[in-house]
């Protein structure tokens, strides 16, 4: 099964369980008002849970059907390829492409790590902002993100710091927002 299909089934299961969880939470988290109305506050969240539950199952079934179709197509194609060995040879990637693909995979991993690093930086930003103030925390965060993105040009940092002050200036003195 392809990675995409596995992931889709995983998401289907996840959302199905999520729908059940909300269904269970509804009586605990939503008190019913003393004045009875035609349709209480619990009705809508419950209906959404039912719809989400059904569509999650739908996603799982749909993915399984897609998987079966892919398998069938795959097994149909194989004998064709066997009949035409030349074409098959052409489609197989040469060694150079393979090493390029490996490099690409390393690049993707690097990308994932970069995104994770920026995510952690953003969390730190939200924690630090009330403690050390908007200007310093923003300048620090921006600089760290630039480092993560691998920028070495000094004037990029200068432009960043100027922008931080400009944002502060506009919000503080023109929009009258009391930034921390």
């Amino acid at each position, binding site marked *: 099964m392809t990675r995409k299909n596995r*992931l889709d089934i995983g*998401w289907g299961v996840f*959302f199905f369980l999520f*729908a059940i969880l*909300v269904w269970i939470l509804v009586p605990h*988290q*939503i*008190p*019913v*008002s003393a*004045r009875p*109305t*035609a*349709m*209480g*506050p619990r009705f*809508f*969240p419950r209906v*959404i849970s039912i*719809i*989400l539950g059904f*569509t*999650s199952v*739908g*996603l799982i079934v*749909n993915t399984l059907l897609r998987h079966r179709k892919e398998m069938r197509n795959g097994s149909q194609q194989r004998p064709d390829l066997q009949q035409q060995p030349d074409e098959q040879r052409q489609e197989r990637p040469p060694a150079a492409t393979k090493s390029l693909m490996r490099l690409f995979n390393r*690049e993707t991993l690097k*990308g*994932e790590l*970069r*995104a994770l690093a*920026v*995510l952690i930086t*953003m*969390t730190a*930003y*939200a924690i630090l*902002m009330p403690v050390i103030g908007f200007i310093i925390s*923003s300048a620090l*965060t*921006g600089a760290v*993100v*630039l480092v*993560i*993105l*691998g*920028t070495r040009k000094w004037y*990029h940092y200068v432009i*960043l710091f100027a*922008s*931080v002050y400009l*944002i502060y200036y506009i*919000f503080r003195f*023109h*929009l*009258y*927002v*009391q*930034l*921390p």
Partner: protein
Amino acid sequence: MLLENVLTGFNNVLNLNVLLFINVGLVLGIVFGALPGLTATMGVALFMSLTFGMDPIVGISMLLGIYCGGIYGGSVTAIMIKTPGTPASAATVLDGYTLAQKGHAGKALHMALVASTIGGIFSALILLFVAPQLARVALRFGPPEYFALAMFGLAIIASVASKNMFKGIMMGCLGMYISTIGLDEIGGMPRLTFGHTYLAGGVKLIPALIGLFAISEILNKVRVGEHAIEVRNTFVSERISLKEFARSAKTIFKSSAIGTFIGAVPGTGAAIASFLSYNEAMRSSKNPDSYGTGNLDGIAAAEAGNNGVTGATLIPLLTLGIPGDSVTAVLLGALLMQGLQPGPGLFRDFAPIVYTIMVGMIFVNLFMFLQGNLFVKIFAQVAKIPVKLLLPILIILCATGAYAENNTMFDVWMMFLFGILGYILLRNDFPVAPLLLARILGPLAEFSMRQSLIISRGSYAIFFTRPICLFFIVLTVLSIAFAIFKKDVIPEMAGPGDNEG
């Protein structure tokens, strides 16, 4: 009455502040549109917080400038570096880039500008004359009609906005859950707040949409990194001749009409409009083989089509309060922030502002033409701006924007949370537009349904005995049926980002 309101609109637009900020918005929009990975939607979401302290007319005009500029700006990079700045300009690459390769970059850019402007103005005029009529009808809507309308909006959006209908509906459900958090509007009881006082007011729209449409895209951009630009066309100062314009005039007007029609239908978007216009121009052409080889007509069709959407998307937004795509959903957030609740009431209570917005759309397009003519050489260089430098600045701007509305760090946390959610969902091919739209339409659907049932004393017949209500319920059913069979009608053209403007 209409003429009087239109004149008031003109009067309000012809104000130095409004004109200035329309132009500021256009520059920002064109830069955002031209930079690959940054979309018009993201531009509007980011700069929305800047309009918070502004006069509503000035603020909204600036955002409309960003919107229209963003859709046009995508064509610049499509022509110069073969990378559409926004998904809406993907069709422009086909002929625009090829023509530029032949040494006519100036001509391609000029045709894109002319077609975009005509498409935009055509759409703005339709908006100006259709919206008030529709609003007059909508004024008679009661709770049952609003319920049916919200269901129609939800159904069409969840089903059309995604390649995979199940995923679209699932995201709609998630958005509806989020909309139920907070105090229940009818009973006044807290729902799904887990005892958290901040959540009693519900999940705020602005931090959620900045997170979903800006932070998630920034994280994605960080992950992908900057692709080396393989080939860059050299800019040549050149314009299309009157003869060339006359030859493409038919295509431009036809595509403007297609774009306008598509734009008025919720759940579509600029990318679909530009591909449909392109296909139609090619189909009806005497020389279809010349498309894709640098045909000016191809550029004209794609660009008149995508900018033709801009005014028309405001029709359902302003008259019914139903946003048709993600960028109008963000605009709805901006209107709400200014205390303007979109819907027929807007035409009754805030007529001068609504007419100014609609007349403003015409001016936005006129200034776009002017700016495009004057600064095309500079815009052609926009792709050289290092996105690496922009990303940290955008993160800071997002945080400031989320904080600004209520002066609380809780909103900043919310924004980051939605950013992470959006990033994870996008990576797994879940469309985020239905989530946001359900967050907006969910309360309308629930509130109006419960109100209707109070009126009818619990009888569901109220939804099937009123003609307008029945009409929308039939439309809802038809749109779901269309979504199930759509693969036969509209091939998958624009990918998952087709609703991202």
